């Protein structure tokens, strides 16, 4: 641990680089941790002091985000992505292997402080897993030989910059391209269109296009822009939601990696339409590896006159974009929680109404759109709404990027016009033996083979893009259990049904998974799921029971084959509970053990 005297100048320097602005608190804490490996009470107090805010506000943020540590952590912090797709690829075995080779416990820090190993929610590398993060940087395609090499590098204290580049290679794997990914886009063409034709005309094109929120919620994008444009106030903001946290989705990562100009251009067009001068990209912490390239792209756009003051030489057109990096909180994908996080706070969803289009970032009118939505908007500005609307279905215009992973031969990104059937997608990606799909991630829906003729569109199966395939070798309940644990980890804790319900549901799924479940437990899951669905404050809690509720209907056999034949079994093991009494009395005779079967039979 650093001495207090050494710590203060470091922190002062970081806080000053952020202009002592409290809205930068999360960014400041990320950088402080990069320097000090964890956020000690002294560090938290020093940040509070430098920012002139109370220490509890800083601690509040530090305690909320998964990637911020208030306990000592190794200088190499390795976190295995623990999505079900990583599990399918054998990540648990690799996690144990690495821990053993390094001599560190899971979630532990080695005594020499050199390394910590743990697990984290899906890192968005499902098409190239098993994946992990080391100090926030993505590691892909992990194998035992690769881990052996990592053990050597860690033990030799080799700086990350000197690790083999291929360990960090992230490929885009675009397997099918349509109008968004397939056509060339000339940088600046959308900006020229909005300058030439005016904001009203571009908004009309957006209306005609029928574009809907590509994060999965499906709200009409033009209506958002219109509402924000009409909202009173001089200061407005554009926010790009690149907090792609839904397990199994990674299409925004590919857009940010290969099509950042398109996304930035869409944001800039939006800025012109609604009258905003400032935009933010909220990039999930797991995509930290993209930060340098994104900053370079922003800079080159400024130099090309496509961003900053007087865009394309028009003094009335100024717009700039700041990058904001998340720190491991799925809930921040919810737009009002994302805004809270952008303001430097912990990410608890706001009460709505009012909505962000009138009361968003710093309570100013704000448009929050998904990465793919902005990319589509840039194309629409150039090609027109009619062009975009010629693809897709009546209620779902244009195309959708799907992130394919799990049991298929060709995982990666597939762009389809809305309305494509699940069956067609499965055929194209080489999923020959699918028994089920987790559509739109754990918050979406699990569908079995009898629903494979359904169409991917807002009228039928809406999705943000996650598409995880389970073939017949898989136990569906392994997936359900993984998702139930995921939601416990990601609940923000604000409202009762989600905070408590996610834990209760996890315990019930675990009980069934370990062979102790009964019919009464399945009924209990349904009731609990219903309370969470209708009672939770935000979409996280409302959708958290979906995997359980869907699979109870779609895959009843996955549960039933694990059920005990009894109607009821208590949540605790009575024999185990008596162990201490037996130990104290020195009893080992058969009479000191309960006859469990007789006991269960006696239950009401």
């Amino acid at each position, binding site marked *: 641990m650093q001495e207090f005297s050494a710590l203060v100048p470091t922190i002062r320097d970081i806080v000053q680089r952020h202009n002592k602005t409290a809205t930068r608190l999360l960014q400041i804490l990320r950088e402080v941790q990069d320097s000090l490996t964890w956020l000690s009470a002294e560090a938290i107090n020093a940040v509070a002091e430098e920012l002139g805010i109370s*220490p*509890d506000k800083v601690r509040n943020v530090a305690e909320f985000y998964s990637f911020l540590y208030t306990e000592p952590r190794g200088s190499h912090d390795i976190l295995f992505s623990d999505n079900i797709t990583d599990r399918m690829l054998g990540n648990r075995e690799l996690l144990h292997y690495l821990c053993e080779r390094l001599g560190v416990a899971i979630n532990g820090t080695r005594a020499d402080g050199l390394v910590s190993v743990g697990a984290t929610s899906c890192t968005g590398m499902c098409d190239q897993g098993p994946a992990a993060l080391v100090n926030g940087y993505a590691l892909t395609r992990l194998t035992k030989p690769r881990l052996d090499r990592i053990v050597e590098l860690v033990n030799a204290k080799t700086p990350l910059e000197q690790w083999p580049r291929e360990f960090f290679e992230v490929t885009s794997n675009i397997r099918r391209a349509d109008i968004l990914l397939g056509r060339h886009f000339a940088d600046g063409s959308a900006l020229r269109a909005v300058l030439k034709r005016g904001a009203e005309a571009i908004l009309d094109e957006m209306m005609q296009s029928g574009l809907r929120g590509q994060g999965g919620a499906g709200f009409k994008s033009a209506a958002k822009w219109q509402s924000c444009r009409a909202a009173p106030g001089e200061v407005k903001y554009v926010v790009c939601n690149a907090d792609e946290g839904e397990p199994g989705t990674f299409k925004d990562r590919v857009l940010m990696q290969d099509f950042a100009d398109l996304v930035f251009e869409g944001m800039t067009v939006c800025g012109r339409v609604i009258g905003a001068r400032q935009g933010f990209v909220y990039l999930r912490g797991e995509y930290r590896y993209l930060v340098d390239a994104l900053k370079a792209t922003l800079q080159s756009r400024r130099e090309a006159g496509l961003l900053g003051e007087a865009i394309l030489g028009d003094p009335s057109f100024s717009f700039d974009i700041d990058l904001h990096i998340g720190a491991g909180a799925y809930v921040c994908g919810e737009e009002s929680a994302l805004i809270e996080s952008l303001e430097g706070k912990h990410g608890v969803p706001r009460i709505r109404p009012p909505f962000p289009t009138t009361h968003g970032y710093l309570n100013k009118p704000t448009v929050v759109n998904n990465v793919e939505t902005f990319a589509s908007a840039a194309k629409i500005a150039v090609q027109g709404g009619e062009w975009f609307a010629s693809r897709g279905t009546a209620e779902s215009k244009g195309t959708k990027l799907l992130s394919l992973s799990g049991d298929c031969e060709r995982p990666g990104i597939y762009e389809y016009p809305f309305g494509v059937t699940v069956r067609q997608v499965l055929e194209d990606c080489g999923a020959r033996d699918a028994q089920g799909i987790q559509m739109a991630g754990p918050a979406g829906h699990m569908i079995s083979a009898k629903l494979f003729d359904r169409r991917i569109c807002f009228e039928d199966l809406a999705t943000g893009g996650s598409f995880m395939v389970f073939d017949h070798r898989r136990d569906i309940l392994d997936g359900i259990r993984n998702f139930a644990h995921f939601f416990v980890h990601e*609940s923000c804790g604000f409202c*009762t049904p989600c905070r*408590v319900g996610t834990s209760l549901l996890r315990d019930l799924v675990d009980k069934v998974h370990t062979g102790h479940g009964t019919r009464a437990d399945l009924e209990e899951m349904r009731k609990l799921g219903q*309370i969470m669905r209708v009672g*939770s404050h935000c979409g996280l809690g409302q959708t958290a029971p979906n995997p359980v509720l869907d699979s109870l209907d779609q895959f009843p056999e996955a549960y039933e084959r694990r059920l005990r034949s009894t109607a009821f079994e208590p*949540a605790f093991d009575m024999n185990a509970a008596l162990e201490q009494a037996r130990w104290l009395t020195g009893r080992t005779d058969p009479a000191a053990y309960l006859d469990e079967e007789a006991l269960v039979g006696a239950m009401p």
Partner: protein
Amino acid sequence: MSEELSFTLDGRRVPFQDGQTIMTAALAAGFYIPHLCFNPEFTPHGSCRVCLVKINGRMQASCTTPAAAGQTVLSEIEEVREIRRGILQMLFVEGNHVCPACEKSGACQLQAVAYYAGMLAPHYTHFYPRRPVDASHPDALIDFNRCILCELCVRASRDVDGKNVFAVQGRGIKAHLVVNTPSGKLGATDFNITDKAAQVCPTGTILRKHSGYEIPIGQRLYDRKPINVVGDVAALAVSKGGRRHD
């Protein structure tokens, strides 16, 4: 004005003014909707979810939903009551609520709302969290076992007392009430037993020292009449068995 704005609550007409929520309009009209994190003296929080009602067919928190003309609001129907009981049961198993031994039993809003909602048992598996009590303050005791994270003490201390003594920290099921001092002890703060923060707790988390169990069982606040008749413990004077200082 002859055209008064109104909605219906379980079939009864409730007038309202612009800016009121379903909850504030209902209370003003003398109708009770059970609640815990809501206190009319504070900005609505919307976290406990006990005040859920069915508004035009959709379940929403009445404390945060603006009243609108013509809304059909259903509160005392079995569908809503069942959800409400489930949420209350969650609160009971999340903490350690030992009603028979609790000094606030009988004058506890959580307990009274549970009775009102028809909750007979906690139903779910208890979490039995470890939450040590804080007896460091000369006049007050904090029993974190009973905290339901309504943040009323947080809000009262910050917004009324101007002391910022309390905060909720941690994420998800790890969220917990803390005292804002390096030691985490209440005794190290300038908290005073006459603070607003000492008067708003809907459970027995923040207790007054030097007195206890003074009112016998049977004569406590909610022993004879239910909470919808008696009102919230925080709104009643200490002399009437409530928490508000005279």
